[in-house]
């Protein structure tokens, strides 16, 4: 058994190294892939332009180009200089590194969750030795799912800033799971970029968070808000802004009540909901919650429609660039073509989400009943 564990561990590292190599190979074809200009990858929250504006001593938030957080700007900015002058390696390597750190943190979180889970099972006397070996090491699985998810790879090669934001979320999750309150707080702080040096005035606040809340930029992305707010009459705009944003807030409390005994799962559900209803979503956001999903592989293995949803994700993520091409480059389609795929994507995500939640609840209920029977 010990040997098997060691075997799986070495397999894990082999796959991690393979994923790094795969990324480095892809880095060599940036011109063929054009990933950083894809609407699926880059949102208005990109940073290279912002750094150039800062270099030429213009506030990067004065125009409409840059809406990323100033902290990211100061971290990633210096790296982009190398990108633009020499080979694109330094910033690419940085993002590969971020991905690896993310994967390892997810793995550690998974261990932590599984340990707690195992302890609960043992305390309830539910686990038989033969079955214990059949439980998947969900931490390893989740890390590999995160690393090999095409969405993660695309976001990494496309130099989207979402891996860094994902890192902040994962750090805070990891901190929460291990009970390291300061770490969790640090991750959370990183996420909201509170501890920035006062570089510019308050402008960046409205330019980043205001920008996110008011959905000013209507360039197409994989979300549904750009289309809706391009269509909506101006005098209804604020009303629908409130409705759309309230939508998220309405879900927070009921979910918290329902899943209060499963905090890690609740965090995952929140991450997924944010990824769906965000105003400028990118594939990097989906990559995060799909990675976290694998943390609960043991519980969700028997999910309904899993194959259907899997096919749906693949189909939509392939169809979406084709529709974009039809609309923008060939001129034979129109915005509705692309928006249709965005809507299908949102639907698939929501069905998946509701299935996961109900499946998890069923599982826990069954577990409780089982323990009652055994007792």
């Amino acid at each position, binding site marked *: 058994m010990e040997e098997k564990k060691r075997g799986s561990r070495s397999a894990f590292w082999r796959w991690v190294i393979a994923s790094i190599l795969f990324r480095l190979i892809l880095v060599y074809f940036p011109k063929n892939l*054009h990933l950083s200009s894809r609407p699926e990858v880059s949102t208005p929250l990109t940073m290279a332009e912002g750094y150039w504006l800062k270099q030429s001593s213009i506030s990067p938030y004065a125009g409409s180009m840059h809406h990323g957080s100033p902290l990211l700007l100061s971290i990633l900015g210096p790296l982009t200089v190398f990108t633009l002058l020499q080979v694109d390696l330094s910033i690419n390597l940085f993002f590969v590194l971020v991905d690896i750190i993310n994967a390892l943190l997810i793995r550690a979180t998974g261990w932590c969750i599984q340990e707690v889970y195992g302890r609960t099972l043992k305390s309830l006397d539910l686990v038989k030795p033969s*079955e214990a070996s059949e*439980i998947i090491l969900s931490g390893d699985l989740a890390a590999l799912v995160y690393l090999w998810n095409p969405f993660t790879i695309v976001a990494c090669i496309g130099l989207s800033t979402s891996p860094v934001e994902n890192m902040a979320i994962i750090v805070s999750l990891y901190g929460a799971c291990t009970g390291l309150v300061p770490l969790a707080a640090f991750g959370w702080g990183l996420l909201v970029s509170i501890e920035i040096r006062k570089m510019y005035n308050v402008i960046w606040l409205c330019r980043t968070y205001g920008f996110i809340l008011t959905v000013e930029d209507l360039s197409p992305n994989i979300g549904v808000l750009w289309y809706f707010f391009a269509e909506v009459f101006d005098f209804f705009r604020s009303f629908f802004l409130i409705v759309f944003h309230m939508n998220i807030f309405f879900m927070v409390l009921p979910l918290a009540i329902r899943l209060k005994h499963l905090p890690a799962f609740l965090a995952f559900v929140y991450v997924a909901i944010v990824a769906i209803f965000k105003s400028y979503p990118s594939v990097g956001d989906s990559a995060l919650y799909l990675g976290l999903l694998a943390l609960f592989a043991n519980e969700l*293995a028997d999910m309904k429609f899993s*194959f259907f949803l899997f*096919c749906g994700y693949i189909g939509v993520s392939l*169809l979406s*660039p084709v529709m974009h*091409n039809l609309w923008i480059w060939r001129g034979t389609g129109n915005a509705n073509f692309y928006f249709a795929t965005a809507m299908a994507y949102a639907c698939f995500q929501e069905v998946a989400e509701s299935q996961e939640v109900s499946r998890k609840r069923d599982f826990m209920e069954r577990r409780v009943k*089982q323990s009652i029977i055994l007792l």
Partner: protein
Amino acid sequence: MAPKETPKMKQRPIVRLGILIISHSVVVSVICCISGVVALLLLPILAKNTYISENALMPGSANPMLSDQDVGEANKLVNALLDLKSEPISSGRVSTLVAEFISDLGAEVGYHKFYPESNQFHPLHFFSLPDSGSLQENVNCSMYGINVIGIARAPQGDGKEAVVLVTPYNSENADLSDALSIGLTYSVFSLLTQVTWLAKDIIWLVADSRYGEYSSVSAWLRDYQRPVFGASLILDSDTCDGGSRPYDLNNFMTCGKLIDNFKRAGTMAAALVVKVTEKSEPFVDTLNLYAEASNGQMPNLDLINIVNYLAVHRQGLHVKVKKLIPLLNAKWLNVLADILETVGVIFRRLNPQWKFGIPAAEYIDGTATLASSLYYQALGIPTGPHGAFRDYQVDAVTLEFSPYSLRKGRHKEFLLQGSRLIEGVIRSVNNLLEKFHQSFFLYLLTSPGRFVSVGVYMIPFILLVAPLPVMAASLYMNIFDFGPNTETGQLAVSPRSVTWLDAAKMVLIVHFWGAIVSLLPYCICQMDFSTPTMNLAIWSMLSALCFLLLCLVLGLHFNQTEKAKWVVLKSATLSAVFIGLCLMSVVNFATAEIGALLLVPLCLMIHPLKINPNMGTLVNFSRMALNFILLSMAFPPVSFFLLQGAVYGFHGIDIGDFWMWVESLWAWNSATYLYITMIHLPCWVLCLHILLHAR
């Protein structure tokens, strides 16, 4: 623990309908497939007559202004060009001569020097911009061509829009018809420099087609759409610097015009490529239309409509689009046409209002045209220089005149007729207020005046692919009759997701292998083996090697003990085929349709080679035979040779032809190539795997 009996709730009608369809998947599949093929065969009957959709075009509302005087001038140019032919060195002289004639009209003249590119392999070209990347890598500095550009500025316009006329001209082996094509365009151009109604600038591109008609036009378009700013002029920005500047370029300097001065007008509203050929049909002046651009893209139907309308109703030309000639004599088609005609007659007798059915001859003609339309769209290779324009969203069409009157030496008569047609088309386009958008972009032609729009031709395709998800769902639901019960509440991972995860892994790996196979020709071409047959052999060997390596590295072995494995694999394969075909139908419909005809029956029928004792020997045997036939037919080389043989006859077929065909596909960045290697071939391999699966 026994499975709980949940009380049956009354389900919603849509769910019940879904379950009904899935439980009768075999019947549904058979009905859908057959009706899909039937609907495809009915397309020529369902075709509608074309109509001018954009009101602003108003074709033929003005009388042609082109007079004998313009034609006389054009004839002078034709004669001058023919005189040049007798002189020994004429390549540079032709450009100068044409330029002189243009500047005599008072129009602007420019030259465009370009280096023809050998076609490169851009595997992801389809998703990127048309002018992406540095395209100056594979140029040969000693080979260059010179395009001549004339621009007539519009007196009424603001210089923001333009209409392009293209005349390909090969000075090295030009004959009367080439000279006439220049003369034809020249007569129109000379008229357009004088008229007052012009609202869009006219660009006349005399494309130097020594290195191919397409490459010269695409080179000009690339430079037109990608202006070079600053001091670096077009010529200097080339990788070939002034050191290799050939001698006769100095002649151009003396014309008083700088070669580096790239002439531009506004955005292009439309482009017409004018060609003349000496081949002609007896007794009629014919106009051949070519419209297919890369990846099955077509120009807006309105452009074809106005050309067709003016040619038929104003100039009395016989308009033709390409047909698959062998189909015209096919026996089965004749029989089918007769049957459909009879059915149509019966229908009309039942109710005179029903306008179903067309005469047999018309049906045969329509089918041959439709088949060629499908074939050329599916190839994804442009059928002429007009294809270069479509990459920049400009609607373009090639007009190839094959005049009978030439044989009688009546040049002037032909010039007048042809240039009046072009004048009329330009006058219509000149009226446009917006770019072409009213009419269809997605259509198939069954004759120059009849078309099948996207809404109609999607029906056969949808009917063909609809059984795939139904069958996949029914197989997937059947798995749980084989497998252990899922509701036992085990602590271990229950089989529902694990069963399909293995199959999905298999499918993904095989598709990954497909992606590798698609990249292999790139390496093979770098190695430069001599014969196509050799290349093909190396390609297939390397592909097989890669497959074995992938199997070894990623551990592609199936646990053969489990009964349900192949069923899951089939279900996953069906889903993959469905996704792939739907995706391809958006990229290039014609490819998807042909691919669906080959793949769908195969994937639905595929079954392991194992005698089922519950069925009779005859059933078992016929299923096996059918599996074999379908599998061998869907293998890409075999289907290629079968199609070739069906169209051109089986004699003289060489194995290397397949390599040549594939090479032409990737050289033109056709999405069909990606389809074959990344969707069709992997699915075929998966079907083979299922067939050889020992249950």
